[in-house]
């Protein structure tokens, strides 16, 4: 006879196992299908006709798609760099100084995280057309409107991550550096930045992936000459969902997953170090 199920033997209960399975299928079946059919040797995505890599070749040969991908990467890199600087400055400011209305300011900074993207998109569109932001500049300045829009929704994520890390900062470290003769800038460069590095990297990766796959806000701020990867995929899908779209999407998934995993790993490592230091 089997041993009775103990109070902590969750996974030996049938319904728990079923729930876990259903959740997993729900989350990953669409993505698994997408990836599988990117290798499908068929014009349509309905029947499996055999393995091929030709749609990857086709996607790589599609100049419009490649240009969109290059645009997306450029936007992601530039908006991430600006977001890191802006987010870190805001976080340090909120941590270091006391000023009237600080609590309100802190809340307002985090607000773009919860504002619906569609509202941000419409607001950006209205803003840029109202001030007459030029749309016919040379590359990469033609992307500036999109970059500004991306910075506005991704720097709060950097600020939140960096702010959280600053809570664990021992102010005596900064005072010690100052006491040893460092100027305020040297204290920031030699003590604060090294301490914040894991937070900056994690926040930056978050900003990067957010920018890379943003559709809604980009859709409202992009013009005919500034198509990004998600917008391009959307326009391709309007004609038909071909395995080429699947192949391109698979590449994007891989890029995003790798970036996120790296961000999580950095945070985990920083957490372990903080624990060691505390213990």
């Amino acid at each position, binding site marked *: 006879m089997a041993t009775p199920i103990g109070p902590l033997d969750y996974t030996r209960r049938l319904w728990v196992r079923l729930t876990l399975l259903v959740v997993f299928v729900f989350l990953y079946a669409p993505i698994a299908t997408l990836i599988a059919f990117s290798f499908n040797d068929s014009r349509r995505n309905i029947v499996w006709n055999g393995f091929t890599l030709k749609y990857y070749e086709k996607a790589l040969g599609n100049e419009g798609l490649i240009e969109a991908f290059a645009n997306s990467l450029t936007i992601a890199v530039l908006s991430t760099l600006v977001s890191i600087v802006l987010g870190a400055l805001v976080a340090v400011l909120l941590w270091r100084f006391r000023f009237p209305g600080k609590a309100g300011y802190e809340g307002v900074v985090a607000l773009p995280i919860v504002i619906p993207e569609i509202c941000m998109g419409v607001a950006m569109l209205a803003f840029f057309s109202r001030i007459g932001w030029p749309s016919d500049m040379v590359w990469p300045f033609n992307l500036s409107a999109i970059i500004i829009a991306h910075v506005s929704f991704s720097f709060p994520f950097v600020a939140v991550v960096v702010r959280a890390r600053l809570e664990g900062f021992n102010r*005596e470290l900064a005072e*010690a550096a100052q*006491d*040893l*003769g*460092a100027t305020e800038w040297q204290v920031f460069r030699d003590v604060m930045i090294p301490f914040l590095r894991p937070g900056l990297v994690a926040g930056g990766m978050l900003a990067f992936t957010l920018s890379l796959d943003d559709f809604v806000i980009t859709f409202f701020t992009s013009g005919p000459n500034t198509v990004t990867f998600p917008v391009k995929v959307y326009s391709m899908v309007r004609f038909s969902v071909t395995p080429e779209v699947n192949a391109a999407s698979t590449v994007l998934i891989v890029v995003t997953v790798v970036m996120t995993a790296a961000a999580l790993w950095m945070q985990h490592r920083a957490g372990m170090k903080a624990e060691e230091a505390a213990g």
Partner: protein
Amino acid sequence: MSTEQEVGETPVGETPIIEIAGLSKHYGSVTAVDDVDLTIRRGEFFALLGPSGCGKTTLLRMLAGLELPTAGTIRIDGQDMSAVPANRRPVNMVFQSYAVFPHMTVRDNVAYGLKVDGVPRQEAYRRAEEALELVKLGGYGPRRPDQLSGGQRQRVALARALVKRPKVLLLDEPLSALDAKLREQMRFELVNLQESVGITFVVVTHDQDEALSMASRIAVMDHGRVQQTAPPAELYEFPRTKFVADFIGSVNLIEGTVEASDDGLVRLSAPALQVPVEIEQASGLPAGSTGWLALRPEKVDISREPPDDAGRNTVAGTVEEITYLGDVSIFHVRLTADQPLIKVTIANLDRVTRRPFTWGDRVHLSWAPTCGVVLAQ
């Protein structure tokens, strides 16, 4: 800081290195440091002693320039520090958390203060290694701080401060994070280190044993004010206020009225004592004023019969409680009903099974007029 410091050359002189005048620090309505005047002498091992919240750390931080005074001046080596920022002051600090930079090796930690001063890397590393040898951490340069014990991290913090050859080394509760055995050992090492480098040390502590055993002079602080500044023995034998008497060591504080005060002799009558007592004391109190007799428990003699010497102050009572502490026993003796018990400490010279007195015994307590002081406040 251009020439090599001659080891042990600076004598403990009468010349001041730090002069503090009228120094105050307010945080809103809270007064952390209240009109402090203090002079610290060159080459001295000086302790700021007091309970937590007495303002001693704030005072130290103002010396370092990490806090700005609300009022008053600080002069270090004759130079006014009002307009000198923390990174330009000729003092260095060992922080309570040691604040060793976690992302730098031990060597880079110690060399940091030299590098920001523009000392070439090789020279900085050479002097860092010297400083590490001084604190017995020679060869630890390549290690990372997370590979060190708490005691070793403290030594790194010491080396990092001393390598800059400051005029004054400030130490904020330097031993509080160490375990008891190591703490005792580090007391001696700090004193030896101070003697060998000849730099003035100012240490903040709440631990009276630490202050008494290390410092050449101690300032006792309470509520932002300096209560008394004196060498350890003077502080213990001649406290000036009830707070100092009570804070340093153990004491019987007996409230009474001054009956007479002349010829260096104060006569005090107290409800807790059956007879008036006489204490030899230079500073007289006006007759009729309230006075407190501060009497150390180890200075009181306990006996079954009254002592022959009529010059001794003698009272009688009953042993009510005995506290055994291994090396000593404390006898709590009731002299008068409804009055506080008097503590008497007796060294346990014999095995405790041969204890001379036990609960309920009638005993006589006596002490010479040279023991104890009468305090006005």
